[in-house]
C-alpha cells in the first residue's frame, strides 16, 4: 500500500540528487537543471501533503513554485547567455573575476 511517506522519500531522493548536481557539476546549465530538480522535489512533497491532508492549498503552492521556476529559468538562461557571450565559458569554476 502506497502512503504519503513513499512519495516523501521519492521527493527526498530527488532533492538529494539535485543537490548532488548542484555540488558536483561545473556546467552552469546543468546546475540550473539541478535547481529545477530541487524545485520539483519540493513540489512533489507539496502535492503529496495536499493529497494527504485533502487540502488543495498545496497544489496551489506548487503552482506558484512552477511559475517562479519559469521566471527563474528565463532570467537565469539569459544570464548564462550573457556570461557566455562576455567570458566565452559556462564553467562555473572559470568565472572567478572576484578572486584576487
Amino acid at each position: 500500500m502506497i502512503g504519503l511517506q513513499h512519495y516523501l522519500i521519492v521527493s527526498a531522493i530527488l532533492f538529494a540528487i539535485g543537490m548532488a548536481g548542484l555540488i558536483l557539476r561545473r556546467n552552469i546549465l546543468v546546475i540550473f537543471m539541478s535547481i529545477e530538480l530541487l524545485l520539483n522535489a519540493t513540489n512533489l512533497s507539496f502535492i503529496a501533503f495536499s493529497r494527504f491532508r485533502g487540502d488543495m492549498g498545496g497544489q496551489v503552492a506548487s503552482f506558484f513554485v512552477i511559475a517562479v521556476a519559469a521566471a527563474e529559468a528565463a532570467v537565469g538562461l539569459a544570464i548564462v547567455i550573457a556570461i557566455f557571450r562576455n567570458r566565452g565559458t559556462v564553467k562555473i569554476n572559470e568565472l572567478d573575476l572576484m578572486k584576487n
Partner: protein
Amino acid sequence: MYPLYLIPLMPLIGAVINGMIALAFARKSSKAPEALVSFLAVLFPLASFAFVLAAVWPFLFQDVSAPRIETLFQWMASGNFKLDFALRMDRLSAIMAMVVTGVGSLIHIYSTGYMRGDKGFARYFSYLNLFLFAMILLILGNNLLVLFIGWEGVGLCSYLLIGFWFEDPAKASAGKKAFIVNRIGDFGFLFALFIISSILLKNSDAASSGIFNFATLEEHKALLAPMATVICLLLFLGACGKSAQIPLYVWLPDAMAGPTPVSALIHAATMVTAGVYMVARLSFLYDLAPFAREVVASVGAITAFFAATIGLAQRDIKKVLAYSTVSQLGFMFLGVGIGANVAGIFHLMTHAFFKACLFLGSGSVIHALHGEQDIFKMGGLRKHLPVTFWTFLICTIAIAGIPPFAGFFSKDEILWQAFSRGYTLQWALAFATAGITAFYMFRLVSLTFFGKSRVDHHTLEHLHKPSFTMDFPLIILALLAMTAGFLGVPEALGGHNILHHWLNLEGGVVSEHAESENFERLLAGASVGWAVLCTSISLFLFTKKWNAVGRFVEKVKGAYTLIYHKYYVDEIYDALIVRPVNWFSRVILWKGVDAGVIDGIGVNGSAKATEFLGRLFGLLQNGMANSYALYFVMGMVLIVWWIVH
C-alpha cells in the same frame, strides 16, 4: 435640509477645478482663461454661503438652539480610541460660518478685480478656495481633530498665499516665517491634545463616545480639571501662533507680503480669529483654569497695547493695518479670556467687517498707485478714489470706536466686561489702546487721503481706477461695519443685546456691580470721549500741523526709532532663539551627533564590523562556487537533523 458637508465641499470643488486649470496652464505660455476662473472661484464660495444660510436659518428664525451634528464617516478606530469625521452646526459655528463665507465671498469678488492679469491667477484662486474649505472645516468640526485639520489647512494656505509671489525671496521667506512660527503654536496645540487623550482614554464611556468631541469634553471636564491649566495654556500657545499674540505675533506683519485680499481675508477677517474661536469654543475648559483665563486676558491686553504703539510709527500702509489687526485680536482675546465670549465673538465679527474693508481699501489704494505702499508717498487721494475713501473712512471710524458704528459697541462691550469682572489692569491697558488705535488709524487716513498729494505726477496721471468688482465689496463691508453694531447694543444704552441672548455663551465668573447700569453708561461715555479726543488730535496734527509732528519726533528720537523698528523684537528673537538653535543644530547635532555618533560609530562602525566578519568568512570563499553549495547543503542537513531529533 441640505447636508452640512456641502458647505466645505463647495470651495473644495472650486479649489480642485482651479488647481486643475492652473496645472493645465502651468507649462503653457498662454494664460488661464481669467473669466472662467473668476466665475468658478466666485461661484463656489457663494454657493457655500448660500448653504450656510440654509443651515443657519433654523437657528436664526426658528429659535432652534440644539447643535446639529452630522457624522460623515468613522475616521479612525484603534483600540478604544475612535473618532468620527463629524461636522457640528450650532450658534457659535453659525455666526463664524456666516462671517467666513460671507466676507470670504466678498473678498473673492474683490480679488477677481485685484489679481487681474497676474500670471498665477488660477493658482491664486485655487489656494483661496482651499483656504475657505479649510477654514470652514475648522469652524464646523465637531471634534478637536477635525478642527485641527482645518487649523493646519489654513496654516498651509496662509503659507502658500503669503509666499504667493515666491520669485521674490523676501516674500517666500515671509511665508516660511509664518509657517515656522505657527509650528511652534501647533506644537502646543498637539501637546494639549495628547494630554487630553491620555486622560480621557482611561475613562471607558468617554472613549466610547469619542474623546475629542466637544460634547464629550464638556461632559467629562471634571476628569480634566487637574490638568486644565496646562491644557488651556498649551491650547492658548496654539492660539497665539495662529492669532498672532505675544510672543508669536511676529509673523503677521511680515505676512503682508502676500496679495492684499489675502491679508484681508486670512490675516484680518478669518484665519487669525481661529484662536479666538477656539478659546470661545473651549470656554468650559478655561472655566476650570482661572489662571489660564488670567494669562489669556493679560496677554491679549498687552498685545493690544504693544501692537498699537508699534502701529503709531509705521510707514507702510499695510503694516499699520497689520499691527492694528494684532492689537484688535488682543482685544478679542481679552474678551474671550475674561470669559466674555459673546463680546469677543461680537468684536471678532465687527472686526472682520471693518478690518477686511480697510485692507481691501488699502489694496485699492496700492493697486491705484502701482504698488506704492508708503503712506508718506500718498496723500490727497480723497478726490481720486472717492469710493475707497468713504468706505475707508467709515471703517476707520468704526475701528476707532466712535458710535454708532460697529466698532464702538463691540469694543466697549469688551472693555465694560473687563472692568466689571475686575480685570482692572487689563481694562486700563485696553482703554489706552482704544485711544491709540483711534490716533494711528486717523493718522493713516489723513496721511493717505487728506492733505495735499505727495504722489509723483506720473503715477497720478495713470491712476488705476478700481473696477466695480473692487468697489462693490468695499461698499457692502462698509455698510456692514456701520450697521453690524446694532446686533449688540447693551441694555445700558437702551438696546437689548440681541447677540448676547442669542449666542448665550458666557464663561468665567460674572460679577455684576450694583450700580452697573449707570456705571456702564459712564464708561461708555468715557471711552467715546477718549476716542473722539484722540481722533481729533491726530486729524489736527496730521492734516494741519504736519511740521509739529516732525519736531515732536525729533525730540523723542530714541523712542520713535525704537517703535519704528518694532521694539527690535525680530532682532531679539533672532539673537535669543534663531542663532542659538542654528548653532546648536550645526555644532552639536550635525558635527557632534550626526557626524560623530551616527556616522562614526553607527555607520562606519557597523561597516568595520561587517568588514571584519567578511574577512573572517572570506576564508571559506575559495572561488570554487560548488563548495558554496556544499556549505549551504551542510547547513540544511543540520537543520533537518535538528528537526528530526
